[in-house]
């Protein structure tokens, strides 16, 4: 409980410090907000020309897209400490982290928070609401639960991926740019119905990195695009939490393996 209170305190401090340069902060957040619209423009262009894809309309895809972007924005803002982790390892600064009387995971999670990333959150919310309104998607308790679980699951998968990216640094000492394929590439893949891809990729994004479980399956079931049982679709995002759990386990293994590079 104390940890949680400390975490919120640290979040508050970072918010206050970033708000010191108010104009610059607002500029950053609005620029970022604008730049994240590029993806939806691309999707809109395709639907404007082709109208439908495998029975999916733009409005339906907008719901998956919104969930993906909301879910991505949370670790993008809060898992920053893992993102530039390579520098910490190379400079040997991780030693200092190990000396402090708090868990490494906690310290990494609260190391850096990028509030401007919430521009993407705003964008995702707008697209998600547009999709729900256009579809007249009745927001009954079950649907709200489905969407909330889906967002939670998506955030968990991406958070797990950021942790994994950092964990690999324990062995490579250099941040693997290649892992961007799973984070930003995962976002690109996940914003379309997973049924568009070939079976190998579909399997990979269902059972290994469960990106399909967290947004596609729940929404596809709710919209009757997949014939899996309703309850299974609704709880599929829990796969994301399992993924996060294993990422944390691997992180702990990595910490044990760590040998300092510093002098």
């Amino acid at each position, binding site marked *: 409980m104390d940890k949680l209170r400390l975490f919120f305190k640290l979040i508050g401090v970072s918010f206050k410090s970033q708000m010191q340069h108010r104009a*610059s902060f607002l*500029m*950053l957040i609005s*620029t*970022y907000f*604008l*730049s994240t619209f*590029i*993806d939806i*423009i*691309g999707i809109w*262009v*395709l639907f*404007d*020309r*082709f109208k*439908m*894809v*495998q029975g999916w309309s733009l409005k339906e895809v907008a719901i998956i897209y919104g969930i993906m972007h909301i879910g991505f924005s949370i670790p993008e803002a809060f898992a920053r400490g893992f993102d530039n982790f390579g520098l910490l390892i190379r400079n040997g600064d991780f030693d200092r982290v190990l000396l402090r009387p708090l868990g490494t995971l906690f310290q990494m999670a609260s190391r850096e928070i990028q509030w401007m990333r919430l521009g993407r959150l705003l964008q995702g919310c707008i697209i998600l609401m547009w999709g729900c309104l256009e579809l007249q998607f009745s927001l009954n308790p079950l649907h709200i639960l489905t969407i909330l679980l889906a967002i939670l699951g998506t955030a968990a998968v991406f958070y797990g991926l950021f942790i994994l990216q950092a964990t690999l640094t324990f062995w490579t000492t250099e941040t*693997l*740019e*290649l892992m*961007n*394929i799973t984070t930003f*590439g995962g976002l*690109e*893949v996940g914003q*379309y119905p997973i049924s*568009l*891809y*070939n079976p190998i*990729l579909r399997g990979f994004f269902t059972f290994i990195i469960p990106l399909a479980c967290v947004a596609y399956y729940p929404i596809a079931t709710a919209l009757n695009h997949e014939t899996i049982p309703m309850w299974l679709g609704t709880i599929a995002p829990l796969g994301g939490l399992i993924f996060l759990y294993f990422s944390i386990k691997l992180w702990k293994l990595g910490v044990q393996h760590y040998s300092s590079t510093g002098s």
Partner: protein
Amino acid sequence: MKAYLAILYARMATLFQYRGAAFAGIATQVFWAIIKTMILTPFYAQASVLQPISLTQAITFIWLGQALLALLPWNIDKELEAQVKNGNVSYELVRPINLYSLWYARAFAIRTVPTIMRCIPVFMIAILFFFGLSAPVSWLASLTFGISLILGAFLSAAITTLIIISLFWTISGEGIQRLMPHVALLLSGLIVPLPLFPEWLQPFLNLQPLRGVIDIPSRLYTGVIPIQEAFYYLGFQLLWILILVGIGKWLMNRGLRQIVIQGG
């Protein structure tokens, strides 16, 4: 001229050292091209009316775009940015060289070297694994593609230089530097090939300079632009290079007249 060529060579030799980054870039671009191909194919599968470009052409657009991604004016030379920020740009002004040409040479290096390092492996992977990259439609098409690509590099370098010059006014340039990659991707047809955009947007898309970097070469390669019209499009690229270099030189003169050197 000799001095600027020397700067260009020196800069290119340095940039060729970043092979690790190129490797990550190659893997990412191949992945992206495969994903984009997979997304586009089912869209085409149910299209009932004839599209402006065929699926085969669209897939070739995707591969050309991903292979040549680094050619886009999406970033700037970090050393030059630092010079403007810390005031060291004043040393450059003392030297008996033209600052615009110096920056342009460096911009040209930063556009071409990463592109050369990445495009050849990406093309090889695309061909070896039959990922749908088709051959140029004719010998003449590949020749005009090559010429157009070189013009595209000059054009992209002119845009890159303009972004650096804009730092005279904005100093931090964070806004433009964050937006530029996205604008460049969208307007050069890397998100979705430009011919697939709605008809009512085409007049605008056809006139903006960013299409001269990758879109025109791709259209020549795939035969979307017939060979007899090639001269018109090469002229379009040349015209934009002249306009943007002109604007860049003019802005730089204005910027230098009122420049305030940062730092003590």
